């Protein structure tokens, strides 16, 4: 059995960890991250590799000439940026077909990591506002409430983006965003601008709701990724509690 050299093993490890951490930070599922890392390692000639992925960290070990190499990578920030997941996926496909060398692969992955977001913040806020208005109609709201939901949803999403950038505490950002939504909905109804408080709040809260997390958590649990499933579920419950308490504070004020 021929083994690859020590330096090469470290280089392969760097590439795998970089690809895995970009995917995990930007919202890929646990099993896809594991799959991608194993594929890259296999494509570069590693006979045996093992990885353990949780939402907060990656552990990867590769068998080489020397004793097994293991590396741990901590993941602190998690967002949803599926464009980067698609890009890394493309790169890993090309690595599997053997058309990309190790050096080139590393630089391509670095480019993806440093890339700025595709859509500007303003564009995202507009999208959230329009989506809120549409959700209002989908949940049997009346067209008269479209404008209040539009404003509340947009401002709420803007608040969550802004507070998250300033304070780095996700929980607080969500509480304040939900509070802003609640206040706007109540003001809209009390001034006669809107008609149903509940419908306006449900519609405009949707961009903040952890729907993706809940679904992914159950999916991970069923697929046997117990640690990831439970921690994602905990994050989802925390977010839901944050939204609920923000709205609750708005209820108490009015």
């Amino acid at each position, binding site marked *: 059995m021929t083994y690859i050299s020590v330096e090469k093993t470290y280089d392969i490890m760097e590439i795998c960890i970089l690809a895995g951490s970009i995917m995990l930070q930007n*919202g*890929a599922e646990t099993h896809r991250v594991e799959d991608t890392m194993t594929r890259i390692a296999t494509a570069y000639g590693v006979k045996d590799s093992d990885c353990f992925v949780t939402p907060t960290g990656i552990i990867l070990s590769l068998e080489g000439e020397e004793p097994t190499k293991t590396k741990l990578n901590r993941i602190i920030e998690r967002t*949803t940026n*599926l464009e980067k997941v698609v890009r890394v996926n493309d790169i890993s496909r090309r690595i599997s077909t053997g058309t990309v060398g190790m050096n080139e692969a590393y630089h391509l992955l670095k480019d993806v990591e440093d890339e700025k977001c595709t859509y500007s913040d303003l564009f995202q806020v507009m999208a959230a506002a329009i989506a809120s208005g549409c959700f209002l109609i*989908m949940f049997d709201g009346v067209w008269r409430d479209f404008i209040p939901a539009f404003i509340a949803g947009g401002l709420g999403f803007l608040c969550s983006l802004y507070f998250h950038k300033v304070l780095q505490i996700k929980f607080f950002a969500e509480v304040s965003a939900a509070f802003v939504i609640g206040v706007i909905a109540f003001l809209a109804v009390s001034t006669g601008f809107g008609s149903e408080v509940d419908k306006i709040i*449900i519609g405009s809260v949707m961009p903040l709701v952890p729907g993706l997390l*809940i*679904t992914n958590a159950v*999916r991970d649990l069923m697929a046997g990724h117990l640690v990831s499933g439970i921690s994602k579920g905990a994050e989802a419950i925390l977010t839901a509690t944050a939204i609920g308490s923000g709205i609750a504070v708005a*209820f108490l004020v009015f």
Partner: protein
Amino acid sequence: MSEFFAQAITSFVATFGFGIIFHIPRKLLVQCGFIGMLGWMAYWAIVFFYHNEVLAALSGSFLVAVISQLFARVYKSPVIIFSVAGIIPLVPGGAAYNAMRHFVENDYYVAVSLAAKVCLISGSIAMGLMFSEVINQLIFRAHARKKGLNKV
């Protein structure tokens, strides 16, 4: 009938908007909107005719997942790109909100029953996703065996 069109158009636009929030690549946004619309219309039709939200969420998410896997093969992108945005309209945001509201108002009986409903609906969404994955794997494995391929 106008209600039908209003639901179709708003679900398309809402999913499209969510695609932007999730940073889905520009060229795939319309496909995501389409999947979201199909999933929501299935949900809406079943709620309309059978008044069963759990069954509706199950079939909606199943449809979303099946078409997502089809699109993932056609456009050579991860499945999650298509399924994430499509699932969003089915998420029981309204029921979760109502549960929270009743908790705040000290109306625990109603709140707990609503919370149980939220759990059931989100569980059924996950079940829909799982079913489609199982079927996909069965079909793909049978296909691979026929061609004599080992590589998945």
